[in-house]
């Protein structure tokens, strides 16, 4: 059991990091730990949590911005935005647990809307963080456009706490849509499904999400179980008359068939997809997230399935393949190969500790880039105390 530090202010975070640096003692950095099953396990005697660094520090609906300390639960932010009819644009998945906004940013995990509206990193306007020297640094700010200096917001988003500990973030937010509609195209296999999703995303109707689910997943989602087979799903989020109009146009252009789900059904279906409900891994199974060009998604699904029996579904028009299968090195190898063949990227989201320490949980970098990575890591965290080994065994 590791020793847990959970300070309530930024100064104390900085002090803890300085102490750890002096002692050369690694820290397992996190929020509320809802994503600690991802990637490689961190070997550290102490944990440093931002979970007690809470509170919304600024919300200006008219300026489309919200700032909050890193430990603020995402649910609190969503509830506050909801009161003003706004939302978090990237629609981050809910891992089931009190995830913090800092954790969502540090892992850059986005939901279905990502394909049209961008990832968490795209809406991160500013942040404060403590680097491995124990210095507080800020980047970006509270305005919607900013190119002043290097963009550390992008670099720290998705860096999984390995470069600096994020203490506060500012996000761009948008008005939540008045209405939601979903076109369901039943009976398409993955390849045909992706062709339809491509046509929809390449239409002029501003599709906000596009996914394909296999038969077993459809059965599991109440609003879809009546379709008894695989489905392709296309979402529109707009003012109500536009949703009605665009749904009709899309149905006409995609072959004149398909069923339209109403607002409530649409919201529940896309929550399920966002939260990976189509995939029900057994406790000892591994889960992967593979990102490829959309037209390669169906092939990835097939080849990984053939190789190791893993099951999965497609989001982001085919570009995001979520997979569950045996937590073995062979299955992981099949995932890696499929992702590599498609020129894409993979991430091990869950798996046994044995697997997580043994394999490349994300793609290794070519040597000249890995050298730059080492130097950038050292530029933030010279003593290597922040989440050592989380991304790469040697970092």
């Amino acid at each position, binding site marked *: 059991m590791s020793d847990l530090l959970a300070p309530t202010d930024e100064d104390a975070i900085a002090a803890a990091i300085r102490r750890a640096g002096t002692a050369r003692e690694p820290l397992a950095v996190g929020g509320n730990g809802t994503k600690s099953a991802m990637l490689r396990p961190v070997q550290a005697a102490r944990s440093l949590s931002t979970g007690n660094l809470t509170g919304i520090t600024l919300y200006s609906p008219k*300026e489309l911005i919200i700032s909050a300390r890193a430990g603020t639960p995402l649910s609190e932010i969503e509830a506050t935005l909801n009161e003003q009819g706004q939302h978090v644009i990237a629609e981050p998945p809910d891992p089931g647990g009190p995830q913090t906004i800092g954790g969502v940013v540090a892992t850059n995990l986005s939901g279905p809307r990502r394909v049209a509206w961008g990832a968490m990193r795209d809406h991160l306007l500013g942040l404060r963080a403590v680097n491995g020297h124990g210095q507080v640094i*800020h980047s970006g700010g509270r*305005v*919607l456009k900013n190119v002043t200096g*290097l963009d550390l917001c992008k670099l720290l988003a*998705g*860096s999984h706490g390995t470069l600096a500990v994020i203490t506060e973030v500012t996000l761009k937010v948008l008005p939540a849509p008045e209405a939601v509609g979903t076109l369901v195209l039943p009976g398409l296999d993955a390849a045909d499904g992706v062709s339809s999703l*491509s046509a929809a995303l390449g239409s002029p109707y501003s599709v906000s999400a596009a996914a394909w689910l296999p038969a077993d997943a459809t059965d599991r989602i109440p609003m879809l179980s009546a379709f008894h087979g695989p489905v392709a799903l296309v979402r529109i989020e707009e003012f109500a*008359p536009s949703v009605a109009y665009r749904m009709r146009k899309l149905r006409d252009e995609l072959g004149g068939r398909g069923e339209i789900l109403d607002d409530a059904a649409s919201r529940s279906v896309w929550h399920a997809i966002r939260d990976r409900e189509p995939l029900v891994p057994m406790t000892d199974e591994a889960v992967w997230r593979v990102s490829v060009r959309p037209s390669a998604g169906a092939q990835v699904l097939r080849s990984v399935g053939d190789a190791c029996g893993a099951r999965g579904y497609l989001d982001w028009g085919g570009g995001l393949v979520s997979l569950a299968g045996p937590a073995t090195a062979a299955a992981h190898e099949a995932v890696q190969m499929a992702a590599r063949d498609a020129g894409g990227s993979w991430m091990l989201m869950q798996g046994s500790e044995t697997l997580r320490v043994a394999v490349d949980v994300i793609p290794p970098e070519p040597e000249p880039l890995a050298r*730059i990575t080492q130097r950038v890591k050292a530029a933030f965290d010279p003593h290597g105390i922040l989440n050592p080994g989380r991304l790469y065994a040697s970092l």
Partner: protein
Amino acid sequence: MPRPAGEIILTNMINQPEPKAEILARRDTIVAAFRGMLPPEAVIAEPIRLRPYETDGLSAYRQPPLAVVLPETTEQVAAVMRYCHAEGIRVVPRGAGTSLSGGALPMADAVVVGLMKMNRILDIDYADRCATVQAGVTNIGITDAVQGRGFFYAPDPSSQLACMIGGNVNMNSGGAHCLKYGVTANNLLGLKIVTAEGDVLNIGGRHLDAAGYDWLGLLTGSEGQLAVITEVTVRILRSPEGARAMLAAFRSNEIAGACVDSIISSGIIPVALEFMDRPAIHACEDFAHAGYPLDAEAMLIIEVEGSSEEQDALLARIRAICEQHDPISMKVSQSAEESLAIWKGRKGAFGAIGRISPDYLCMDGVIPTSRLPEVLRRIGEMGDVYGLKVANIFHAGDGNLHPLIMFDANDPESFRKAEQFGADILKLCVEMGGCLTGEHGVGVEKRDLMPVQFKAEELEQQRRIKTAFDPDWLLNPNKVFPLAASSERSARTH
């Protein structure tokens, strides 16, 4: 070559790091080495032919480089970079040279690596909605290549006929439609880069959110200081069914600002929401004859997209909101031609100001939108103090201000005042909770203002990242960071 007197004086005003004497002394050897690795026409060394490269869109600053090379392939760029790395030669990457912050300004001992010959579209993938192009393809060139199929590349800087995608990536350029579609960073998938050490690397690809550090995000907006970019994969989007613009004229900047707030609060995000003040309205109307309201203190251009019924519905809602703010007049475009005319005035704004005052500085600060009226009032007051005219054009939805300060380049005192006035405006932006630059970059123009926005440790953190990519500080080293510190840094490594 004879030059206007003012220019010579101005040239001396920009401080450059001390050129490396040993590099200057070896110029002929260096040029001969480039001739050995590149096609003959790709190496420029004659002083007269270096002239076009001595400045960029911030033409008050000039400095001819040691030489210019115009490679045609990534391998040629890599050969040049390996040689420069081995020999300790500074490199200034260059696209079209339209930077408004002096980002592409050469140094006397630097070789300019111009990407303009790398101007091929390599691949268009409609199924995956992306295009891979060489860095020297113009911004408009991408849209031109895909619009036959109804697609477009979203970021649309006003300079889009000339500026190149490699420059856009390095400046993270925006445009009038970025309120809906985002800036360059939000529209990229992959890059091919050559590092300062001459290694060729692929970053990202055709997929979203590659795992690992977000190099794509870090390289975007890095102002030619981290790597030379030779290929870019961008997202392309299907054009909406249609778009239409309207104009609304108001009695004061305050009222127009309040109207912007009301539109955003209503849940409508127009694709574009542009603000012009009285001097800008007059200058643009004289130039474009777009039917701008000359009796107004402030004007908004608001554009919506969708089918014609959807446009009607949105414009009706926006009109109703404008009505609550006592407008002087409103005009909804009735046709594609009228919308084009409305935009012609805005997109030609720099040309229009150029007709009133041949010399102007275009500033690029950002403020929280709620502070707009206050900031415009203070800019007006400062203009009175400096005795200089200023016109304001503003991406109202996102708070990106473009004050155009008019001055007389033949009068060094006038230029000095304009620079000072510009710096004061940017300091005001930071004081209001904003930042120094929203889309034009820091370059040489704003490097000495960086401490206004960043603490010493923060600048040092950014410098360490540059060092990680470019250990010898050879890539565009005289930009972005306050000069004293970067000179010290480059000196330390050699």
